[in-house]
């Protein structure tokens, strides 16, 4: 149960605090990975998750997106504003670039994919089938979906994977613009991205050490 306490600024305060977590704990496949994560994120800020491979960046992002159940603590996030971009680009190889985006525009009930194509430098590729795209171009198409969704909270899992330096700068600019327009972004990356107003969270400090985190040998083998 989350009780909204009155604050000096009143409702405006709650509104500005877009995402709030209190001692959040995450599990993956029944194994506790992270615990005790607390942060408040206001509109217009970008949070970068850091940590070595396997520390739980993806798990945290999936928990925030609602794809994994919340194990401990509380989480306040407007799920109707979440746009999630995982490791996979959710791009259909048989469809063209434009058809892919048109589909997502239909799902999110938005229009106007032309400006999005232009913004991510995909206009020249609009009629090309997605199977003929390079890995980096596919990645950019996957990120174009976030712009099409017109949602304010972006959760990005390694958005810069397989991008060259030019495309990385482009993606950083898109994320900066999104935050400048009042949006929020949480992303995991190993690179230093040129984004303004950026906060960093090192997940290595929140690794769970609880004793009951051993995997259940029966369940693990039953579905292996």
């Amino acid at each position, binding site marked *: 149960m989350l009780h909204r306490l009155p604050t000096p600024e009143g409702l405006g305060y709650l509104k500005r605090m877009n995402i709030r977590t209190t001692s959040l704990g995450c599990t993956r496949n029944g194994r506790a990975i992270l615990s005790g994560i607390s942060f408040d994120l206001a509109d217009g800020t970008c949070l970068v998750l850091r940590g070595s491979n396997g520390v739980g960046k993806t798990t945290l992002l999936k928990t925030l*997106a609602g794809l994994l*159940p919340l194990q401990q603590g509380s989480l306040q996030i407007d799920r109707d504003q979440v746009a999630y971009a995982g490791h996979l680009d*959710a791009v*259909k190889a*048989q*469809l063209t670039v434009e058809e892919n985006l048109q589909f997502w*525009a239909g799902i999110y*009930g938005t229009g106007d994919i032309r400006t999005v194509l232009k913004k991510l430098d995909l206009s020249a590729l609009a009629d090309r089938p997605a199977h003929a795209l390079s890995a980096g171009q596919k990645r950019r198409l996957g990120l174009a979906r976030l712009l099409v969704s017109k949602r304010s909270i972006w959760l990005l899992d390694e958005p810069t994977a397989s991008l060259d330096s030019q495309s990385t700068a482009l993606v950083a600019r898109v994320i900066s613009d999104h935050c400048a327009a009042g949006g929020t972004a949480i992303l995991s990356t190993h690179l230093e991205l040129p984004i303004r107003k950026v906060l960093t969270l090192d997940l290595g400090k929140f690794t769970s050490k609880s004793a009951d985190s051993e995997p259940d040998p029966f369940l693990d083998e039953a579905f292996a």
Partner: protein
Amino acid sequence: MIALFKRDIMLAFRSGGGFGLALSFFLIVVMFVPFGVGADLALLAIIAPGILWIGALLACLLSLDRIFQLDFEDGTLDVLATSPLPGEAITGAKAAAHWVTTGLPLTLAAAPLGYLLNLPSEAYFWLVASLLTGTPALSFIGSFGAAITVGVKRGGLLLSLLVLPLYIPTLIFGAQTVTRAATGQDPLSTWAMMTGLSLFAVAAMPLAAALALRVNLR
């Protein structure tokens, strides 16, 4: 929801889609029966309703695992789960698209194939009617099985084992409808029974499939 329905149909017709697969399997099975059984016209007329229904059922089964598996593998399902579409709309739209790309073509192909099996002329109307209202049950029950097995690698066998027992009532009443029409009995009662089953599947299976999908995505 309409966007998802349209995209699934579009994908089925593109290269690597499942449209031709079910239909050609159905054609092959039904065309091979006269070779295997022999040219005994009286015998063929007796077994024709069963063969046509079993052929349609197996052809439908062949493309079931594509309903969710492909979207699961390329991450689309994760994104859809966070989209404004409710889970029931996702599973309903996908099952409906599966029916349009498999059940409907099978229904249309069944009448000429009935001729190959010497199906009595009184039974043609009921063959098409029973497949038209019966194949939605196959797609919707199948979508439930596909949702349960979505994360399982090579889950085709498991999917068949789960789904085939649930197909039996539809098969019995569907094939009986055609047999009764062929032998001069009243096919209406069995047809109504099967259509009832089909309507139940269309109404209930999207809910069950959405629940299964939610569990599997975690």
